[in-house]
């Protein structure tokens, strides 16, 4: 009888866990739609880095082809980086420099360059990279207008190697599931950045227009990642071949 009760309890717990995991996956998919509105996108992105004292540090422009199956091609367009490209195919990454005819295979650690890493620019979804659990309902923020709103708190763990952040504490709107804020932790479980998401229409949000990243580790700079335009676009398969990209073909 004892064995039966134990088995029943374990089975119930497993079913509950599976249901919760399914709930979290569905919530993440709904949240992803605010950044990745289609499976294949072309996104024009601008980054502005601001120093801790509020003075502007630098500005960068990127064209991102965010494609299905966790494939992204980032084209750097600012003078300091013009011609550079980063290709991400699942867990595999290449850096292409304009004066080099060879694609450089890079590790996930080498991808974490800069105030807004290439991962911050190219990664526009969580559902395929993270699993998680529901922590509960909490105020969206400690202060300001968001404090009055109720958010759902999700705790996410990376389910794949090569992602920029190992753990994410994510708060999403309770009724519409839009992303509100996130704490981003790197491999050593150190809080690396805090993210805040700016929506197009706060009362009835349809898309994220800006992600504000506050560095919590080294320089305490703030990075504004602005999504200037999004349009649905599937690129030809050879554009995602690093050997094709070293030819510096026109990618328009």
């Amino acid at each position: 009888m004892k064995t039966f009760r134990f088995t029943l309890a374990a089975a119930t717990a497993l079913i509950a866990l599976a249901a919760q995991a399914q709930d979290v996956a569905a919530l993440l998919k709904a949240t992803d739609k605010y950044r990745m509105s289609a499976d294949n996108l072309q996104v024009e992105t601008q980054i502005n880095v601001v120093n801790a004292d509020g003075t502007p540090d630098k500005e960068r422009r990127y064209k991102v082809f965010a494609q299905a199956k966790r494939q992204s091609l980032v084209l750097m367009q600012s003078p300091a980086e013009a011609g550079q490209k980063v290709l991400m195919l699942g867990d595999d990454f290449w850096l292409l420099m304009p004066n080099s005819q060879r694609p450089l295979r890079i590790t996930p650690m080498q991808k974490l360059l800069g105030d807004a890493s290439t991962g911050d620019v190219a990664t526009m979804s969580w559902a395929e990279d993270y699993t998680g659990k529901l922590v509960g309902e909490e105020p969206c923020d400690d202060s300001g207008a968001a404090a009055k709103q109720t958010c759902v708190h999700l705790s996410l763990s990376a389910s794949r190697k090569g992602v920029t952040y190992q753990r994410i504490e994510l708060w999403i709107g309770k009724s519409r599931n839009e992303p509100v804020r996130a704490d981003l932790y790197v491999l050593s479980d150190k809080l690396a950045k805090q993210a805040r998401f700016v929506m197009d229409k706060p009362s009835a949000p349809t898309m994220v227009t800006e992600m504000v990243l506050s560095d919590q580790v080294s320089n305490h700079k703030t990075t504004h990642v602005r999504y200037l335009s999004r349009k649905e676009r599937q690129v030809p398969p050879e554009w995602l071949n690093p050997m094709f990209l070293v030819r510096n073909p026109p990618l328009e």
Partner: protein
Amino acid sequence: MHRIIVGAAALLFAALGWAQTETGATQFGGQARLQWIGQQASGSGPLAQANALQGGIVDLPVGTALLETELRASGHGLSSVLTLQQQRSDGGASQSRAWVNELYAAHGAGAWQFSAGKKIVAWDVGYGFRPNDMIQQEQRRTLLSSTLEGRPLLMAEHFDASTAWSWVWVNPTASNDASGAAEPALALRLYQRDGAVDWHGFARIGAHSGASVGAAASWVASDALELHGSLRTGAGLQKLLLGGTWTDQNQLSLLTEAWWDGSAISMLRRNLYLRLSWQHDAWQPALDMLYTPADQGRILTASLTWQGDRVQVQGGLRSYGGPANAVLMQLPVSAMAYIAGTWTF
């Protein structure tokens, strides 16, 4: 000759400029670099001995200042890179040069791509040494890197999502007696992406050097570690490279490579190369060492680079060391210093 090159390039730039007004698809760009390199003559070696016996019998190394402008234009299936250089040495002598780094036509037909003209084609996976650099055959570990001068070639390539084939006829109009990078040759490369590993296969038939084949791979073994290797055999030579790059969360990076170069003189066939660098905001300090175990010769380089939006400034020191009989100690230079500023437009 100088005027002809500059004239041809100017015509090309003008033609591309006219084309731009028609369709707006042409891209222009370039960079200007001002650099100074100082050299310290070696106190040992044949050059120093000759000079000790009779002063002025040989030219000793001197410092040089250089202004280099690189112009790029591409569009409508044409690409070109032109370099204009003015050089002045400490002795007062100055000279101006201009050359075309690249000038080629390219055409795409679906998965097929064709190129004809002077073009830089760099193969293989190594940093300090590349056994299968069958086309460009570039000099590695230069003090300051600059845009290479391409080779005349005809090339056909085929791409799909994970495979690339390249067929190259390099130096098609050169004499069969030409050697090294100028030798007429047919070369083939096959690239295959397979998850965390990039595989490369190579083959080359030179007009008089004969046939050689090679293989290379680059493998991302973990979040922090990349390993690579390259092997080439045939045409009377063997070359082998093994290496890896480790990078930590703070962007501290260590590159280690060891290689065997069967084409080098006996004392320089075995080599070990280490490079430690750190990327911190706009700054990148780096230290590297090339060591030749056979004679214990070594080259040490320390450098510092600052990268701004359009401006890059870099400086460094390089010194040659080892026992008096080491090959590197027979070179005319014992130490070098450099500083360079580059403006991108």
